[in-house]
Structure formats: structure tokens, C-alpha cells
């Protein structure tokens, strides 16, 4: 495992070095290409702003009003009845909506219940194996100006539900429910 985290640390510098050397070897005008490609990055970042402002304002209004908490309280008994600890229910709802909030909640759960408990482990696996669906959708589709999302949101959210169920099963399988 130490080896794995070492790889992930060295991966980026090595990749950069490799791309540069390979580009030079293939006689690509490296610096000029870099600048040309980079210019595109500025355009993309600026073009995402309105999409993200719209989405994040809606989500923060929903959260600040207390509506999200109310919804979670409503769904808590349901979650509990299928074997999800009550404490982890809020994380499940916040994960697809807000990345920062989910990360905060995960650290909170790990701090309060300990990393080596059922709740701590489940929060860890959930955090690691899912992504913020709304954010991914907004940024990716926003950047290229897709207005009709088709089934993307439905598919993304259903995939989240499946991911959550699988993480519960896998954590119980590996560590039990202690």
C-alpha cells in the first residue's frame, strides 16, 4: 500500500517529464504547443462560470433554508430500515449534490465515530468510490454547451444509488458491522 501511494505521488511529475521528452523526440514545438493548448483552458474555465453559479446558488439556497435537512430527516427511517446507520444517511444524500459538503461530513463522521468503525469505514468507501454527480454534469455539459441532458441526470443518480448499495454490501463483507 505504501508503494501504491508512492506511485500516485510520483505519477504526475513522471508523466510531465515523459510527455515533454516524447514531444521533443517527435520534434513537436513543445513550448508553443503548450501555450496554444493552455489558451483553450482559460476560455473553458470562463465559459463554465454561469453554469456553476446557477447550480451552486440553487443548491446553497436549498441547503441554507433547512429543506435539505428536513428531507434527510424524512428519509432517515427508510435508510435505517434497509440497514444504513442513521448517522451516515445525510452523507448519502449530500454526496451527489455537493463535493465540499460531503468531504466535510466524511471527516466529521470519521472524527466522531473513529476511522476503524463501521460508520468510519462506510463513510471512507462511500467518499472514495462516488463522485459529485451534479457538479460533473454541470461542468462537463456546461463547458461544451449541452442544453438537453437527455437521460444523463437519471442515469447518474441511479448509478449513485447502485454505488451506495454496493459500498454497504462490500464494507459489511470485508469488515462486518462493528
Amino acid at each position, binding site marked *: 500500500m505504501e508503494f501504491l501511494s508512492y506511485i500516485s505521488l510520483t505519477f504526475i511529475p513522471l508523466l510531465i517529464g515523459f510527455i515533454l521528452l516524447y514531444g521533443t523526440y517527435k520534434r513537436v514545438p513543445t513550448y508553443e504547443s503548450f501555450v496554444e493548448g493552455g489558451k483553450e*483552458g482559460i476560455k473553458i474555465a470562463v465559459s463554465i462560470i454561469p453554469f456553476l453559479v446557477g447550480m451552486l446558488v440553487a443548491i446553497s439556497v436549498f441547503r441554507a433554508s433547512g429543506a435539505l435537512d428536513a428531507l434527510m430527516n424524512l428519509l432517515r427511517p427508510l435508510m435505517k430500515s434497509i440497514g444504513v446507520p442513521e448517522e451516515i444517511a445525510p452523507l448519502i444524500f449530500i454526496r451527489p449534490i455537493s463535493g465540499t459538503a460531503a468531504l466535510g461530513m466524511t471527516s466529521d463522521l470519521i472524527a466522531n465515530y473513529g476511522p476503524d468503525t463501521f460508520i468510519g469505514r462506510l463513510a471512507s468507501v462511500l467518499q472514495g*468510490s462516488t463522485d459529485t454527480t451534479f457538479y460533473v454534469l454541470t461542468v*462537463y455539459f456546461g463547458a461544451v454547451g449541452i442544453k438537453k441532458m437527455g437521460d444523463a441526470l437519471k442515469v447518474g443518480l441511479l448509478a449513485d444509488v447502485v454505488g451506495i448499495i454496493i459500498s454497504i454490501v462490500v464494507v459489511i463483507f470485508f469488515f462486518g458491522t462493528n
Partner: protein
Amino acid sequence: MVNYIWVLITVIGIIFALFNGTIGDVNKAVFDGAKEAVTICIGLISVLVFWLGMMRIAEESGLLEKLSRLFRPLVKLLFPEVPVNHPAMGYILSNMISNMFGLGNAATPLGIKAMEELKKLNGEKNSASRSMVTFLAINTASITIIPTTVIAIRMNYHSVSPTEIVVPTIITTLLSAIGAVLIDRYFYYRRRRKG
């Protein structure tokens, strides 16, 4: 659909706040949310500029094409509509690989480039194509090999074994990615039946 969801979330929040006495918080949340969005985008500039610059070199030197040749069978299975030599393939693959190593910073620019190429394939239409929906499904399921952030948090709180969740996370992420692809396929065939 996104229009309705967007309005619904906002309006429910405002109405709820009126009854809940949290209208002051909501007032603040409007501006905080907008500010956070701009902060995220500004933060993205550095990452986007750097990785798109690097990727331009990788593209011009033929590295991206080499990469897509390596994983061609898998990606062909996932994205039957994308021609094998299309640049979209290279971007899709680099995005997936960056995600696997938890390089979210590098993954986003590549994902956006992939989307751009997929849009070109789709005749520059404003609606999401089949491949775009598949690509998003895989991304939201987020295939991870090393969940670095989570490991860091676990270390912080003195876990006996901070990395014990790596294998369960890999298994979960693989299974849920397969699940995501199956769900995606189900919706695709349902759309087709409807015409």
C-alpha cells in the same frame, strides 16, 4: 428536465425558508453560492491551462493516439459510436486513467476535451448523445484506484490501518461502474424502442 429541477430546488428552498425562519440564511446563501462557483472556476483556470497545454503536446506527438490504441477493445465496447482513431478516444482514456489515480485536477480538463470531441461527432448539436451520457455515467461512478483524500483523512484521525479501505473501494468502484454502464445501456435501449 434540468430546468425543472433547478427551479424546483430553488423555489422549495425559498418557500421552506419563509416558514422555517431561515430567510436570512437563504439571502446570504444566494451570494455565497455564486461566490463559491466563481472561486471554483478561477481555481480551475490554473489546472485547465496547465493540463490542456500538456495534453496538446501529448496530442501533437502522437502519445494520445498510442494510448487509445492500447485500450481500444475496452473503449470500443463502451463507446461503439466513437470511431477508433478519433481524438475523443484518447481524451476519454486519459480522463479515465487520471480519475483512477485520483488526479481529479487533471481529469476535469481531459473530460471537458473529451466532451468537446464527442460534441463534434454529434454534429455540434445542443443535446447529449449516447456516448456523452455513457461518458458521464462512468465519470459519476468515478473509478478510483487510490482514494488519496480519504486515506489522508483516516491518517489524520489515527486509523490503525488508513489504507485498509483501498481494496474495498476498488471493488466497490468497479462494481458500481459496471452498474452505471448497465443502467446507461438500459436507458439507451429504452429510448431506442420509443423511437
